[in-house]
């Protein structure tokens, strides 16, 4: 095997080697463990890194430093947070529903980790190669709402319940555009199996890869996907449920200590998994961005794209203001849903036309409704200089 393939398949080979050393009766179990344990280790580590990256990034965006006391440049800040979370007293409200209160974070984290089973992190480095991988991911994703509900309701706190309700409403509303934009990619790829979707995008024309994002409908679908992804994981512009300024901390207000940390972990892991799906559907999964860079190992590309996506999230969080609940809902049902349908039609046009008409038609099919919808949305808003109101 060439050195490139070796580098590419290093983890797979490692696993086979380890499984080989185990007695046959245990081999299936050991095989499963070997695939599960790295996932459980790698992504929480990535979580730790993103917390520091996020705080430093936000600081830099807000023209300040960010945490730099713990270790050089604040690198040990996650460690500090971890210790804080573990050592803090785990307070449970008096009349909270003990059982449900305890199980809420457990269910959440379990579901989120479960979502990682289908993600193709590298060439044949997916934990489970399901025939309907995408559907699996979305099914598990929709499970998280139950966990959020359990958390919100069990803490018997008005704000917690309100936050949970808002979060669930938002997640359900954005689930539809999310799935529909994914459906566009699946329709073109022709399969629900993530590995095959990646292989569909493997080809290069010239130096440019055949990623779906570079197609008119693909780019629109990617944007829709990313926007609904941020909403789905309650981040940045859509982080109303746990908006500190309005309702303190949303549904995990009554959690403290380790359970609080779990919620955080769950949230970030959700972000990572949804951006991973975005990568596989639109950014060619573990494929190299340029034809001459294929020598770099596939998993490396996967993680590179993942980090860039995370940086974008942080960047978006730093810049965009928070949306009001009704604006949020309107945006979902009155803009995202129609646009998703439009993207579907343009993908259909793309699928059944050839050559240059393909590009022209799908481009027009996307742009015209977009401008019309956009114009429609904006017409009834009077855009004028922002007026500042100061308390007298």
């Amino acid at each position: 095997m060439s050195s490139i393939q070796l580098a590419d398949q290093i983890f797979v080979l490692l696993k086979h080697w380890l499984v080989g050393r185990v007695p046959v009766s245990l081999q299936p179990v050991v095989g499963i463990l070997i695939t599960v344990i790295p996932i459980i280790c790698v992504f929480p580590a990535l979580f730790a890194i993103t917390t520091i990256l996020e705080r430093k990034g936000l600081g830099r965006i807000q023209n300040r430093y960010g945490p730099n006391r713990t270790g050089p440049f604040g690198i040990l800040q996650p460690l500090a947070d971890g210790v804080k979370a573990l050592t803090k007293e785990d307070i449970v409200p008096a009349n909270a529903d003990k059982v449900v209160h305890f199980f809420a974070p457990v269910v959440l984290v379990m579901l989120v980790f479960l979502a990682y089973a289908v993600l193709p992190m590298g060439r044949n480095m997916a934990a489970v190669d399901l025939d309907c991988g995408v559907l699996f991911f979305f099914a598990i994703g929709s499970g998280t709402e139950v966990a959020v509900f359990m958390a919100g309701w069990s803490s018997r706190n008005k704000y917690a319940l309100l936050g949970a309700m808002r979060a669930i409403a938002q997640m359900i509303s954005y689930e539809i555009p999310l799935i529909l934009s994914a459906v566009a990619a699946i329709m073109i790829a022709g399969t629900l199996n993530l590995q095959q979707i990646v292989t569909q995008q493997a080809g290069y024309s010239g130096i440019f890869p055949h990623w779906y994002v570079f197609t008119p409908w693909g780019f629109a679908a990617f944007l829709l996907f990313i926007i609904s992804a941020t909403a789905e994981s309650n981040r940045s512009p859509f982080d109303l449920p746990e908006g500190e300024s309005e309702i303190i901390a949303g549904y995990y207000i009554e959690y403290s200590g380790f359970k609080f940390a779990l919620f955080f972990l769950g949230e970030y892991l959700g972000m990572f998994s949804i951006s991973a799906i975005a990568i596989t559907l639109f950014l060619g999964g573990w494929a190299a961005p340029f034809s001459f860079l294929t020598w770099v190992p596939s998993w490396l590309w996967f993680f590179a794209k993942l980090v860039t996506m995370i940086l974008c999230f942080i960047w978006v969080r730093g810049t965009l203001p928070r949306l009001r609940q009704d604006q949020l809902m309107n945006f979902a049902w009155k803009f995202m849903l129609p646009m998703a349908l439009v993207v579907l039609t343009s993908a259909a046009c793309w699928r059944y036309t050839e050559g240059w008409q393909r590009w022209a038609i799908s481009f027009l099919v996307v742009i015209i409704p977009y401008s019309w919808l956009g114009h429609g949305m904006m017409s009834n808003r009077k855009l004028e200089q922002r007026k500042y109101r100061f308390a007298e």
Partner: protein
Amino acid sequence: MNLSFLIPAIILLVGAAAANMLRNLVHCVLALTLAFAGFALLYFGLGAEFLGLVQLLVYVGAVAILIAFTVLLTGGGTAGEQTVLSPRWLQGFLLAGAMFLLLGYGISKSRFTAHAATSVRSYPVSLIGDALITSYALPLEMLGVLLTVATIGGVVLAIREPRQASQSVKVDQ
């Protein structure tokens, strides 16, 4: 009695029993969600993974949350049920028991020419896609229409009457 049947069955039974027994409404709903998840696992066991996922997506994801929301909206969250053991309960269980015994008797007596589940391997999703688009196209379209109508109906029913407010206003003038 392979494992893939036993675990989901247990989850299912626990969920169903809890739904019947628990007094607190939300607990019942959560038990119900568990039961739906149990069904999904059973479907995986039966090799219909696509349906399992659909079950998860539809029931666990949407219906459970819907039921939870309705419970909260109708103030069920706090009020506890009265004591479970009441003549109504007894009648219900007698009926259910009789029904189960009868069905059980029927099932056990009937002889199925069961084909050994040759390969539990699930069928490729594309096969399902083909079947849906070709021979079951009409049901699919009708399903689409049904779901649209259901959505609109749900909205009409549940919407808080802004119109009424406006109507009352009109009346007052």
